[in-house]
């Protein structure tokens, strides 16, 4: 699915509408711990997180994240929005909790893009 379709599924609103929403989202990753994100996430995933600070956007830049969804309607600061604009990463806020949001996306056919520890051991 692309970011635009994802926004509809999570009932979200886009906070930096100037960034194109046509980018393909290949899967998802949900975490509040940015080190976990950096360790586990595959490229072109949507990142669902309850954390709301500039490091989320930085982490997304490093990990080639396709879009960021803030759970429970969290509102990023203007600094974060400016940073996301610069890095061309769509920021979305959605009114549900992490479990509900992951569930909605998974049900819509979006796979997990978190490497499991089982994969890690063989890698």
């Amino acid at each position, binding site marked *: 699915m692309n970011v635009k379709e994802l926004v509809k599924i999570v009932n979200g609103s886009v906070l930096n509408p100037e960034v194109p929403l046509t980018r393909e989202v290949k899967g998802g990753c949900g975490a509040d711990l940015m080190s*976990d994100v950096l360790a586990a996430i595959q490229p072109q995933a949507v990142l669902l997180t309850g954390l709301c600070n500039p490091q989320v956007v930085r982490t997304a830049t*490093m990990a080639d994240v396709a879009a960021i969804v803030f759970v429970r309607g969290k509102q990023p600061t203007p600094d974060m929005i400016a940073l996301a604009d610069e890095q061309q990463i769509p920021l979305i806020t959605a009114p549900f909790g992490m479990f509900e949001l992951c569930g909605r996306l998974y049900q819509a056919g979006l796979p997990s893009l978190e490497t499991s520890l089982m994969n890690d051991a063989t890698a």
Partner: protein
Amino acid sequence: MSATFDPRRVMTDQDVKTISRVEELSYELKIRDVMTARVHTVTPQMQIVEVLDLFREKRISGAPVVEGAQMIGLISLEDLIRAMRRGNGHARVSEYMTTDVITVRDFEPVVTGLEVFARTGVGRLPVLDEHGRLAGILTKGDITSGTLRALHEDFQAEEVRRYRASHLFEDIVSDRTSLILRYWIKPRDFQHGGQASSDIKRALLRLGADAQLARRCGIAVYEAEMNLIIHTTNGGIIKVEIEPGQIKMSAVDDGPGIPDVELAQRPGWSTATEEVREMGFGAGMGLKNIERCVDKMTLESTVGAGTRLTMKIHLQPRQGFNGASVSHSERATA
């Protein structure tokens, strides 16, 4: 351009935040950058039928009326039709031209032209230079194509930067060429945490690194950068040394130092404060993450003296910054 953009509207802070590149360009670009400078002009003495022939031949629908260097009016197809219907084909231009002409100045921003078009509904605007002489003519079509051209130039500029950078190692001949990037990282500067890593990742992409390589380096150096921000007394220095065959990165600080280096590398071990954990870091996974991303990681530390973390990635010939120099460098560094 967004559908809600109206140049007459007062801009709020919210608008400014969501301003698009096209809107920005309408302020950056000057009218002289987009106008048509080669203008067909007529004189007040010309006959209406002569102007009609000129319009037909040049496929235009209006022209400024010029006397000497001064523009004194504008004549449009409509004025010509008005004259012809009265059977006045041999009348002079001066009798039928519009003298009350709305003009813009060539040094004004494009947005001013848009405002005048929106306010007056005219199809073309004569453009005057700073001395009031006719410099060109502006249509909405000129603005559209001028803006598109500027956007294209933006895009090409990035392409050219990338092209030039990716040829760096090919163009400069030495026995061993390397590019060194240095970044000074301040302690507790969470606001800018990740800026250096983000710059490093972009530099690598411009140098022609593939996405996977840039990502590996980016993640490793980001964890190292956060460590400097979280743990050091006076901050530290990140150094990236790029060669055609390898990338060496280091994070060096002058304290406080790590008492037990082995323990520090154990997954889940962390000395981070609650504040740092709230930032999403300090879970004790940083060094483990770095190790996973690079080919070789070395951590040396002395309490009271400081810590040196070095990371090395070997480049496969196909990943290297260019095929030709990789073998050259491998010979040189072997």
